[in-house]
């Protein structure tokens, strides 16, 4: 029984997926999506098993006084800290604080940008303001209004501002500014590009309105940008462990390949046999395309292209067809229960 039920499960789920492939109906499609979701969720439970194994091995090393005991303690410390900082303590997250601060900056720069563009249009000669025609000022104003509305949404969803803070004067003042931007923008349509008096008047209005908006933003409560414990996946330390520990190590490990590819080439590219000479020559030609040697380089470049386009295509196709066949054969063996070495025995 202990072996039959899993084998039956493999067979049933396997055959179901094969049939599903041939059924385009929405029902089959949904079933497919469910099964894929399920395997992801089971995978997370399995990750707990993995963590358990890691902790057990590390702990055993510490307990038995293995020479690496100290390093195992570092592993456990890193593991513990990261899990701890990832915990969703309620409160403002680092990223949220960054977003709110950023939103304030952006709103201010939208307001002052619109103000400056309107002023510039009045003072610059026609030839240099092709990109600042009256109708483009109009666009700048409406675009500023839209983008401010977007940034204001970030205030609204933030934990930081209490409802009263937002519903009250500040937010209302910001939104009024954007409304006024829109109404001024429609007035630009009726102004002729050469009517500098009218343009100056509008620019003055824009400037006045934007000042009010900027003041409203300034009066919003300031945030500190570090919240050491709160925020879960957006916690300050969680993010920085990722950015300043994981990413640099990862990128450096990856870049070790530059050295290893060189040492592997030195160690292994020897003309020992006909076959290894083919390998060596192909690599040599391809690398020679970067040497600054005029015609040799150009020849190598041509040959490289040919190898990549012709024999490379053939070889890859042969491998892919073989691999495809192997995958199909092994899948079939698995579904039919012929291949069951992964299942263990009691």
């Amino acid at each position, binding site marked *: 029984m202990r072996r039959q039920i899993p084998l039956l499960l493999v067979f049933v789920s396997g055959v179901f997926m094969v049939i599903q492939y041939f059924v385009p109906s929405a029902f089959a499609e949904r079933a497919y999506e469910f099964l894929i979701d399920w395997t992801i969720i089971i995978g997370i439970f399995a990750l707990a098993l993995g963590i358990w194994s890691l902790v057990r091995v590390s702990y055993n090393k510490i307990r038995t006084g293995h020479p690496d005991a100290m390093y195992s303690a570092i592993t456990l410390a890193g593991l513990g800290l990261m899990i701890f900082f990832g915990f969703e303590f309620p409160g403002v997250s680092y990223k949220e604080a960054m977003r709110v601060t950023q939103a304030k900056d952006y709103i201010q720069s939208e307001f002052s940008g619109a103000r400056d563009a309107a002023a510039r249009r009045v003072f610059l000669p026609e*030839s240099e303001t*092709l*990109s*600042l*025609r009256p*109708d*483009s000022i109009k*666009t700048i104003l409406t675009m500023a209004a839209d983008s401010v509305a977007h940034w204001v949404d970030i205030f609204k969803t933030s934990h930081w501002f209490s409802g009263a803070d937002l519903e009250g004067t500040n937010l209302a003042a910001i939104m009024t500014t954007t409304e006024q931007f829109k109404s001024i923008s429609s007035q630009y349509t009726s102004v002729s590009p050469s009517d500098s008096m009218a343009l100056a008047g509008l620019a003055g209005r824009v400037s006045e309105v934007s000042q009010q908006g900027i003041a409203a933003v300034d009066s919003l409560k300031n945030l500190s940008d570090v919240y050491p414990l709160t925020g879960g996946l957006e916690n300050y330390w969680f993010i920085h462990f990722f950015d300043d520990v994981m990413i640099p190590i990862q990128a450096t490990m990856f870049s070790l390949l*530059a*050295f290893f*590819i*060189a*040492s592997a*080439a*030195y*160690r292994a*590219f*020897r*003309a*020992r046999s006909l076959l290894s000479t083919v390998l*060596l020559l192909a*690599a*040599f030609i391809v*690398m*020679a*395309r*970067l*040497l*600054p*040697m*005029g*015609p040799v*380089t*150009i020849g190598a*470049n041509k040959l490289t*292209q040919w190898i*990549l*386009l012709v024999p490379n295509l053939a070889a890859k196709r042969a491998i892919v067809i073989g691999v495809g066949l192997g995958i199909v054969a092994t899948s079939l063996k698995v579904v039919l229960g012929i291949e069951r070495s992964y299942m263990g025995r009691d």
Partner: protein
Amino acid sequence: MEQGRAQSKNKTFSEMLMSMDRRWVFLVLGIVTVGALLSKFTIKQSVTPEVRDIYNFVENLKPSDNLLVAIDYDPNAKAELHPMAYAILEQAMARKIHVITLTLSQNGAGLADQAVRDVVDSVATYDGFRPEYGKDYVFLGYRPYYALVILGMGQNFRIPFPKDYFGNVLDSLPMMKRVQNYDQIAGVIDITGSNVADAWIANANGRYGVKVALGLTGVSGADYYPYFQSRQIFGLMVGMKGAAEYETLTHNPGPAMEAMGVQTFAHIVIILFILIGNVGYFLDRRAQNKRARQL
């Protein structure tokens, strides 16, 4: 095994060549790479014909000919493709060729705008005159559905682009008054990392017969050589190397030549080590054969 031999005291010269500690390889490669990077060393690239064809094409245009430069890449491909855009735009603007730029990549408008502005500043600094917007160059901005945009421009630029990036109606721009469709365009240079290139070949060249050249990323480049061979495109630059070749041609060393300098040095180091290993191997084999004959 090699390790064991490396440790034996009396090594012959050939054995030394064959079984150098790999840390020497690391050290030499590291020093050369850091050195080339810090010194910003540039090497003149050997120019391939497909890149030279683009250069010659731009070089042979008359001032006030119209050149369309499509900056169809997003920030992912910036490192490889931005240098190409700069080199071509600078060459064309310095020669007072009328340059029309546009982008068919959703996130490309910012990059294209930046490239055009930077090149205008650079030309103003080094060539003694400032290209004027609307008279010497135009930036049309971004439109979705690239295949339709490319086809539409074949009928009239005003179909996909009634206005430019800044909201100007095209006919208000002096140089665009004389441009209706591809008939007034000397050539298109498309710089892209995506399959927009296919649409330029099929729709602009295939249907309207306008000359098209491509600047591509290293990854997608190899697929387009057949188009160059069949002359559906008149030129092709691929990856950082293509950009560096173009910079070499325009005598305008930039980021691509710097990056390629490092690459060239690193490749030379690796090739030298392969040679050293093989020289050692052949010497060793000869010595062994000799010994075998003596015995």
